[in-house]
């Protein structure tokens, strides 16, 4: 049985857990992060990837708005290679009340968000795909962020500062001695081995699953899962984030992220049992396309790649456990003062956008409990990969004349591209052609980024996230994984799982070109490669 002692154990490998692990490690603590599946598997990897300016919350929730704009400006500095500084527009359509715009702009400015009213003509010039019928537009500093990359970069930095990371390892129970959490018992889902790890503090950063984790420690956190469905369109329809200038509603944000565009979201309360098995319904797809086309009419004729859904971890305020008064703000629970359970804290609520602040607050609490005096530096220290200001600069530091494949790698890894051998023909050859992911990049993920299967590789490299959804890259990636030591039978099983997971996202929107592509993929796999289902 594996036994080790740490200053702090963090449960949850989403962005909150990864950010907290990094912050703790940067402050000199000995950290263990435990995640039952893979990084960014929950809500972190299932949202818009919107780098909020805070404008969306300006009218309804000033506190969130202020947090967002502060974090927005920090992330644009410290997480450059994960962030795309696109700016955003809040547009008013003929059916919207233009009177809302004045309130909106005033509340934005109160929160410290730069909000400039621009002429509809100017808006059409800035973003040609915007609904030309718009009657008003406000420009705000929205952007987009790649949540997988952000999580991986936080995780990587935590490890560079001494943290240990256990993926596919579930916390089965807590070690509680004298009313104090002193560690956790774990089950390694890959090997089936049990473990026991002791620590002076344990932080629950499990998102919606934090509800169940807290229960294992005998404390209640009142959470309400809210499902949000989104659609991925196959290319960057717009270059600017498009929002509706009205009270937040369904499907009113279109975000350009990497090579795709994402429209969302819906909002439906679901039971806890559904959190691990979410399906996007035809009604949700219909709503997303119909509402999305009001932001950018071309969406009606644009190929949809996938549909997916995430769960927001909404937290009921302690004074009203019924869930009627829900906070979307950051919730940090010190279970010692709240429940009399020492050595245990829960960090939840919040947003992808405010993960760093959540991590800072959680780490402050941990340090206070452990009597450690160390200041938070994550406001200023860039994440590994984010040192250069532009893609050109990052690429220029590594290669005099970067090739297309090298450029694509820099586009994903920023300065970290220099850590990967990418100079010979083989390592530059493409595994995933749609997203231009090279052999070098996939091997780097296999060697250094804790991957166990094809889906894990996808989260770290974008393999299979492009137009063909694994048609060409699935087998190639499986081959590289097999070369690295996975047995052939397991690699084949893994490939099957990967392709099923891709199809799950295609199924709700399988018509037109996406259906053709799906049919073609099936033909390639069954007839050309002979990979029929036995």
């Amino acid at each position, binding site marked *: 049985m594996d036994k080790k002692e740490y200053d702090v154990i963090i449960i949850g490998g989403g962005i909150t857990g990864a950010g907290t692990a990094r912050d703790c490690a940067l402050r000199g603590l000995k950290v263990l992060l435990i995640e039952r599946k893979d990084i960014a598997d929950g809500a972190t990897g299932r949202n818009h990837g919107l780098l909020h300016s805070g404008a969306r919350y300006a009218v309804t929730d000033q506190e969130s708005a202020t947090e967002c704009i502060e974090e927005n400006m920090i992330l644009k500095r410290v997480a450059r290679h994960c962030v795309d500084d696109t700016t955003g527009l809040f547009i008013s359509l003929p059916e919207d009340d233009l009177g809302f715009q004045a309130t909106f702009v005033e509340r934005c400015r109160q929160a410290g968000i730069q909000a400039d009213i621009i002429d509809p003509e100017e808006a059409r010039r800035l973003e040609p795909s915007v609904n030309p019928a718009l009657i008003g537009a406000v420009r705000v500093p929205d952007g987009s962020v790649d949540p997988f990359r952000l999580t991986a970069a936080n995780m990587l930095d935590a490890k560079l500062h001494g943290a240990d990371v256990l993926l596919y390892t579930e916390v089965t129970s807590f070690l509680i001695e004298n009313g104090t959490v002193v560690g956790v018992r774990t089950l390694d889902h890959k090997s089936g081995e049990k473990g026991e790890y002791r620590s002076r503090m344990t932080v629950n950063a499990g998102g919606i699953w934090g509800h169940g984790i807290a229960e294992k420690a005998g404390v209640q956190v009142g959470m309400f899962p809210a499902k949000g469905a989104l659609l991925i369109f*196959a*290319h*960057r329809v717009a*270059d600017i984030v498009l929002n509706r200038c009205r009270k937040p509603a369904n499907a009113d944000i279109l975000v*350009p992220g*990497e*090579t795709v565009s994402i429209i969302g979201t819906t909002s439906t309360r679901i039971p806890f049992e559904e959190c691990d098995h979410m399906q996007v319904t035809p009604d949700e*797809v*219909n709503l997303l*396309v*119909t509402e999305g086309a009001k932001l950018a009419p*071309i969406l*009606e*004729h*644009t*190929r*949809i790649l996938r549909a997916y859904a995430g769960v927001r971890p909404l937290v009921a305020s302690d004074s009203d456990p019924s869930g009627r008064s829900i906070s979307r703000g950051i919730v940090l629970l010190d279970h010692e003062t709240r429940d009399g359970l020492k050595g245990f804290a829960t960090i939840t609520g919040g947003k992808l956008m405010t993960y760093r602040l959540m991590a800072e607050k959680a780490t402050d609490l941990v340090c206070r409990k452990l009597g450690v005096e160390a200041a938070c530096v994550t406001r200023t220290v860039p994440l590994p990969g984010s040192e250069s200001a532009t*893609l*050109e600069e990052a*690429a220029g530091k590594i290669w005099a004349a970067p*090739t*297309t494949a090298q*450029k*694509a790698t820099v*586009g994903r890894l920023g300065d970290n591209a220099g850590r990967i051998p990418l100079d010979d*023909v083989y390592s530059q050859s*493409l595994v995933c*052609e*749609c997203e*231009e992911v090279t052999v070098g990049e996939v091997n780097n993920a296999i060697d250094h980024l804790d991957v166990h299967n094809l889906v894990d590789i996808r989260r770290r490299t974008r393999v299979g996230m*492009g*137009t*063909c959804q694994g*048609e*060409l890259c699935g087998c190639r990636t499986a081959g590289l994984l097999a070369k690295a030591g996975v047995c052939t039978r397991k690699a084949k099983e893994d490939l099957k799982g990967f392709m099923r997971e891709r199809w799950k996202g295609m199924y709700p929107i399988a*018509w*037109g*070109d996406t259906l*053709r*592509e799906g049919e*073609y993929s099936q033909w390639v796999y069954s007839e050309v490669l002979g990979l029929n289902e036995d």
Partner: protein
Amino acid sequence: MQEQNLSKNNFEQCIKCTICTAYCPVVQVNPLYPGPKQAGPDGERFRLRDPFFYDENLKYCMNCKRCENACPSGVRIADIIHTARMKYSHHTPSLRDRILAGTDFMGKVARPVAPLVNAIVGTKAAKAGMDAFLGVDKHRTFPKYRFKGFESWFRHKAPDQNRFPRQVAFFHGCSTEYQHPEVGKAFVRVMNALGYGVQLLDEECCGVAMISNGLWKQARAHARHNVQAFEKTDLPIVTTASTCTFTMRDEYPEILGVDNKSVRDRIVLAEKFIFSLLDRGEVRLVFRKDFKARVAYHIPCHMEKLGWSIFTRELLGRIPGLDLTVLDSGCCGMAGTYGFKKENYAYSQEIGRPLMERIRLLDPDYVTSECDTCKWQIEMSTGVSVRNPILILADALDLDACRKINCGTEAE
């Protein structure tokens, strides 16, 4: 819900079958070129993200359109690549590129001193100089300029033309004017024998060499000029050069954004025009009894794109005494001005190698092809002469008998 079943964004219709790359002649010989799928629909998604992802190696695309011919999804791959070059390339056309693109201008300059120019550019010293200072490959043989062009020959024939009951307009193109006036002369003779008079147009170079060399503004000006000139007549606009035809029909709207709807359907290659006259029974052909030749037909890339080689094959197939072999379809490697460039010369020769080997093996009396730059490449690489199909037709027809049967007694 989405109303359209297929994406309006043409590049999204790509299902990544990669057949375009299998058909690309460049990617097989030049590892620097990413291939049509990567350079086209795949690269486009990245370029939309950030112009940083534009790859200057897209310049190696010859615009042969074989990728588009192969594509089962109707993706305009070469158009995507060319449009990206227009939008993102930092490369500015060099003096060499401007000279090569200025087919019309260079012709006008060279003609008055044609013998001198031909003699000079034929010398080793001049070739070495152009290689070193301009980047025009020294191995290249230049087509000879003619002292007397097609139009000045035609001037004496013009009055006769109005006597024919039916008329066509003839777009002769630059190489007929400056280098190969015999093609234009043969066209006039054949058309007259079929009972058609020929009118010239106020034409300018179709602009294809400008498109290839990044002189977009000039190309657009030429396109607009030609469309306007064509609009002044209702006659069919008949041509003898496949690339000019293809450029004016398809590249004007797709790449240059010049609307040619009013004239597009009237622009037609001579072989297709004559074939349809025969097919409708409007004309008849009388061939010479003593014509004999072994000919190999090389289908130019843009002919493949037009889909019209069937008409040439059918027409030539009617000539008794003509032993016609259709060569396996493959690019000759010249691609207009592409093969003249020093950086492309080796690739150009490598691309054309299988075709040249086949021609050498076959050893025909001559090769026939509708494209003059294919002609230059094949003649230089194999020593076998290449003739436009209209020249073969003019040789094989009994022109007087033809004229009698098609014009009755009215004309001459």
